[in-house]
């Protein structure tokens, strides 16, 4: 039970911490038990912001500085997006600390983003003393009920003794099955309270939770039969391939079956962009071929993707001619938007090798040629001018093109939301998996800058480039302070068209050019960066572009490069809202 006594300073010592990892039962505070649980789960980095209701955990953290790298962010939303970037680049669970009330509510956007994009997170929030729950205490908010729709699981702890089991469950749930965010709310009394703790036991079974379905060989056989009979098969893959860490299994399936494969923006990079069977991006601003030919294939094999409306366009005009094979670990996704002929329910790490065994080794030269023909059309109508413009003004596409030349496709590209995001996803060369980090489902502006910080912590060995627009950067620009203080090396590539470009494009195309509140003013970003001791440069001519990008990449620390691009450029191709994928427009 909790006690009503006033908070007392908690004496902590590293000796206690070390001792607790051994086998004996130890007396610890709830705060210490929290941190030891994180260490036992292999956590090395935490993104957070202290406050009244989480002070005991921060107090304990004072003694864990060597073992746990805590990154002090400038806003809790920045903290959770950083944890998302960390999780997406590393494949590990991202961890966030926030205090009660506003600290906790500032996590909501990130939770919603992580929920819809299946990102494994464990968020630990402080809460007021248990005896104050429901009294409208200072910084009390009902964070469990606020976050229920945007978490895979959440739980409140009011007694220190519950902490290790709650965290063990949290990590297990966050990373297993279809991953997602978990929030654990710990009342202040539970953080302070002393209790006797057994050695930490990780969780590997919850009787009401079945993350790993048993694969049914009948489905694999049915799927293989359909594939082996197909004349024009098409694979659509999504983030499930990455989340299942099944990139290799996926490549083997594609290479044996010889089936052209297209990707959702969260699936980008699971197969290198240069792979001969990678036919490009799906969806509203995806490539011409995969969109048009979705409505001409005879068998559609969807792997770890959820038929989002931005991918399918109008559902009653989507792949009606095709037999659909849907591989997914989450049974709620099967038949949700598109009815599957053969549902293959399971982890693609398991199902793909079984399928590969049964499919015949084939090539589809004529069918493949159709994609190349459509590519040629798209290059002529859109890509050539975007990447190698003949006009004076810079395009977003040519910036990405120069970036590709310099990084050779080896950087992690983190994007925000809007036109620059579509350009980066369409044109960035990706040689490696987990190299495209973007807010796909929720479309959260302000995601990229903090997510890039987290991505760098997740993969310090890789170059991280945040591609951001002039709208999005102003939403979380305070995280420049995090970069300043930690010295984390993030390249910020700001594509400034002096508009909220995507909304402007819609207003131009669908609302008679009535540009309603899209003309957004910017500060002098290079000066702002300088204020945070971050090097920067602004370019607006083609002559400077390549050298400026090179300077950004070669600079020993973080660097902000602002590129002034043409103001009123539109992203094409485009499947207008309410249209089928076959109605994709090249202009």
């Amino acid at each position, binding site marked *: 039970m909790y006690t009503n006594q006033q908070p007392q300073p908690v004496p902590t010592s590293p000796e206690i911490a070390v001792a607790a990892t051994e086998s004996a039962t130890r007396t610890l505070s709830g705060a210490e038990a929290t941190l030891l649980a994180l260490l036992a789960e292999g956590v090395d980095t935490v993104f957070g912001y202290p406050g009244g209701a989480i002070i005991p955990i921060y107090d304990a953290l004072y003694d864990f500085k060597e073992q746990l790298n805590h990154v002090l962010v400038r806003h809790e939303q920045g903290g959770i997006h950083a944890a998302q970037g960390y999780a997406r680049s590393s494949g590990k669970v991202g961890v966030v600390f926030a205090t009660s009330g506003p600290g906790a509510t500032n996590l909501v956007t990130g939770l919603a983003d992580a929920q819809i994009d299946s990102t494994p997170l464990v968020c630990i929030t402080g809460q007021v003393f248990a005896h104050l729950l429901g009294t409208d205490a200072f910084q009390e908010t009902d964070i*469990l*009920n606020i976050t*229920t*729709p945007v978490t*895979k*699981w*959440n*739980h*409140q702890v009011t007694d220190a003794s519950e902490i290790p089991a709650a965290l063990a469950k949290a990590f297990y*749930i966050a990373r297993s099955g279809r991953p997602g965010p978990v929030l654990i709310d710990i009342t202040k009394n539970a953080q302070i309270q002393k209790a006797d703790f057994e050695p930490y036991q990780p969780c*590997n*079974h*919850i*009787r*009401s*939770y*079945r993350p*790993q*379905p*048993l694969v*049914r060989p*009948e*489905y694999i056989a049915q799927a293989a039969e359909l594939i082996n009979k197909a004349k024009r098969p098409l694979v659509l893959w999504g983030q499930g391939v990455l989340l299942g860490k099944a990139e290799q299994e996926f490549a083997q399936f594609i290479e044996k079956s010889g089936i052209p494969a297209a990707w959702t923006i969260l699936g980008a990079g699971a197969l290198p962009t240069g792979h001969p069977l990678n036919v490009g991006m799906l969806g509203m601003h995806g490539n011409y071929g995969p969109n048009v030919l979705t409505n001409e294939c005879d068998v559609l094999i969807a792997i770890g993707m959820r038929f989002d409306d931005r991918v399918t366009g109008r559902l009653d005009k989507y792949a009606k001619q095709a037999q659909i094979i849907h591989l997914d670990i*989450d*049974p*709620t996704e*099967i*038949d*949700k938007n598109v009815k*599957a002929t053969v*549902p293959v*329910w399971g982890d693609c790490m398991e199902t793909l090798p079984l399928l590969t065994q049964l499919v015949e080794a084939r090539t589809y030269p004529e069918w493949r040629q159709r994609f190349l023909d459509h590519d040629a059309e798209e290059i002529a109508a859109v890509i050539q001018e975007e990447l190698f413009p003949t006009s004076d003004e810079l395009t977003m596409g040519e910036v990405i093109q120069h970036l590709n030349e310099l990084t050779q496709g080896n950087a992690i590209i983190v994007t925000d939301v809007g036109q620059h995001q579509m350009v980066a996803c369409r044109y960035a060369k990706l040689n490696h998996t987990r190299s495209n980090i973007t807010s796909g489902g929720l479309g959260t502006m302000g995601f990229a800058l903090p997510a890039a910080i987290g991505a760098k912590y997740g993969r310090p060995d890789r170059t991280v480039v945040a591609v951001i627009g002039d709208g999005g950067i102003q939403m979380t620009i305070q995280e420049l302070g995090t970069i300043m203080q930690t010295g984390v090396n993030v390249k910020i590539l700001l594509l400034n068209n002096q508009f909220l470009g995507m909304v402007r494009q819609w207003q131009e195309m669908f609302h008679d050019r009535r540009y309603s509140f899209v003309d957004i003013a910017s500060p002098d970003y290079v000066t702002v960066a300088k204020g945070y001791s971050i090097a920067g440069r602004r370019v607006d001519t083609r002559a400077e572009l390549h050298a400026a990008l090179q300077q950004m990449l070669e600079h020993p620390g973080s660097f902000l490069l602002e590129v002034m691009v043409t103001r009123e450029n539109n992203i094409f191709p485009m499947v207008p809202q309410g249209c089928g994928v076959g109605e994709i427009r090249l202009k």
Partner: protein
Amino acid sequence: MTQQPIDRQEYNITAYTENQVGLLNRIAIIFSRRKINIESLNTSPSEIEGIHRFNIVVVETEEVVRKIARQIEKQVEVLKVYFNPNEDVIWQEMALYKVPTDIIAERALVERLLREHGARAVVIRKDYTVFETTGHREETDKLLTVLQPYGLIEFVRSARIAIIKGSEGFHHKLREFERIEPGQEVSENDYLNSRDKVFTM
């Protein structure tokens, strides 16, 4: 371009769950998010100690109910969800009626009321009498109509509880759930066997 919903009927959703604070909300928002009204909701113990049973009634198409059932079952603390149209379940609702004793004793044929509606008197006091009846909605409604003219003071009806005719209970399934490695039993699913009625995972 809203499509007219077709084949909407009453469905009885039965969920076996852990007994956990907050789970009711987690389940309720699955309905409210889709703007679906819950007609009736009952939570109770089940045949197994420690396992709770939700009975939820909605009027929807089978396709929508199937998707909802999957979403409920996806929640970490939900073990299993079934959904059935009315003909597949035995169901009951209970109603209580409070009427002034003097009027009812004077003007109604109480004995006939009790017999015809399967009702019984729970409390008889000098000032009021409380009748109780159990049955389907039409049955409890009928007695309500009958009692209205006699100065009905209060009326209340419980949520629906339902037993699935074809169910063998949850004991065996629970044993499967408690195993670390799932057997076929819990991994069976509606995609293969019977793309209808029962959803299990």
